[in-house]
């Protein structure tokens, strides 16, 4: 589904990500592990076309036909960052934001947003201001906002890092259920081996911007 070849990203003249070859198959849930500064977020930003590499290519074979430009590319995926980064609007409007960017009809926006608010157990929060939520609630909204777009590729950057252990476990369970239900191809960054065991079908280990051995207990990257 996605193939990265000969990728090089530099920051301040220093290489921060260098990947010769990486292939992500449809339905993969790929965990990206590695120490801080290893290039994990950079990889995610390149995959989202939010960062242009100095060299190399990222080929995305979409089921929805050929990709025309970066905007078209980004509208086939969803990104959830470490912080929920909700907008100063109601929970419903936050979940609906991506659908409205895609100019869906208001009827479709209402229907799909309501369904995902329900699935994430936050329907009762729909009228609440996004900025007034607790960390766990906000991250549920961020997940609903991503899943409602029915993306072909879901990119998650340590989505539970800022949560306490209880909220983290609850959301990881929720995410596992949703990924099993939607079979969305996912790349997620994490430091948590428990999340890897719960969610990942494959694991990638990044160090100093390079792919190295796979994390313990996971088949080596071919």
């Amino acid at each position, binding site marked *: 589904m996605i193939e990265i070849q000969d990728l090089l990203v530099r920051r301040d003249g220093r290489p921060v990500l260098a990947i010769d070859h990486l292939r992500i198959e449809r339905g993969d849930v790929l965990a990206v592990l590695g120490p801080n500064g290893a290039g994990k977020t950079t990889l995610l930003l390149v995959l989202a076309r*939010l960062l242009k590499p100095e060299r190399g290519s990222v080929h995305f074979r979409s089921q929805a036909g050929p990709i025309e430009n970066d905007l078209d590319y980004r509208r086939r995926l969803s990104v959830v*960052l470490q912080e929920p980064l909700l907008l100063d609007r109601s929970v419903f409007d936050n979940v609906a934001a991506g659908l409205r*960017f895609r100019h869906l009809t208001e009827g479709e926006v209402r229907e799909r947003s309501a369904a995902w608010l329900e699935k994430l157990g936050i329907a009762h929060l729909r009228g609440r201001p996004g900025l007034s939520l607790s960390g766990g609630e906000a991250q549920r909204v961020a997940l609903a906002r991503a899943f409602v777009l029915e993306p072909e590729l879901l990119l998650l950057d340590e989505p539970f890092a800022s949560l306490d252990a209880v909220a983290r476990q609850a959301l990881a369970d929720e995410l596992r259920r949703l990924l099993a239900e939607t079979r969305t191809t996912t790349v997620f960054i994490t430091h948590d081996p428990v999340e890897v065991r719960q969610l990942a079908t494959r694991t990638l280990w990044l160090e100093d911007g390079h792919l190295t051995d796979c994390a313990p207990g996971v088949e080596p990257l071919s």
Partner: protein
Amino acid sequence: MGDVFSVTLLSLEVSGLATALSLLIGLPLGTALGLGRFPGRAVLLSVVNTGMGLPPVVVGLVVAMLLWRSGPFGGLQLIYTPLAIVIAQLIIAAPVVTGLTAVALQQLDPRLQQQLLGLGASQAQMVLALWREARLPLIAALIAGFGSVISEVGASMMVGGNIRGQTRVLTTAIVLETGKGEFETALALGALLLVITFLINVALTFVQQRGTRQRGRA
């Protein structure tokens, strides 16, 4: 009484138009300065910040020289017209709106841009969403821009000439009445200017704070 009404109306028209035009220039320029990363940005920001403190009388002098009959734009015959006051006030208000817009957008979390693009926003949709997120300081920029021109006198006097029935605005009328020793009239006009400015700012502040109340309600 008729004079007071026409002077007040002209003040509002001229300063309102100058503020509106300063928004048209300042909002996109401030957005580019606040969000963009390009060579010369720091220099441009310094120029804009300096412009925020431009003395109106100096602006009036420069615009008067440009619009003077023998000046480079003398052929347009704009000197001593309301449009000349609008031009001068635009030069005063635009840096204020530009500078405060840039600051307003710089205060937002920079990752919000990535998040919006990652949700499928186009560049234009992203900017609109960021403006909405920064609406409180942006309305403050509008208030500051309007405040800087409705209350200035130097530029209006120099390029407008304070001609009765044509270019006389509240501030220049106050100067005239004070010069004649008509302090009561000058005070009355001053009070009127204050009330009008207050009412306009109340309306803008209401719009601005509505968002704050909604945010704090939960």
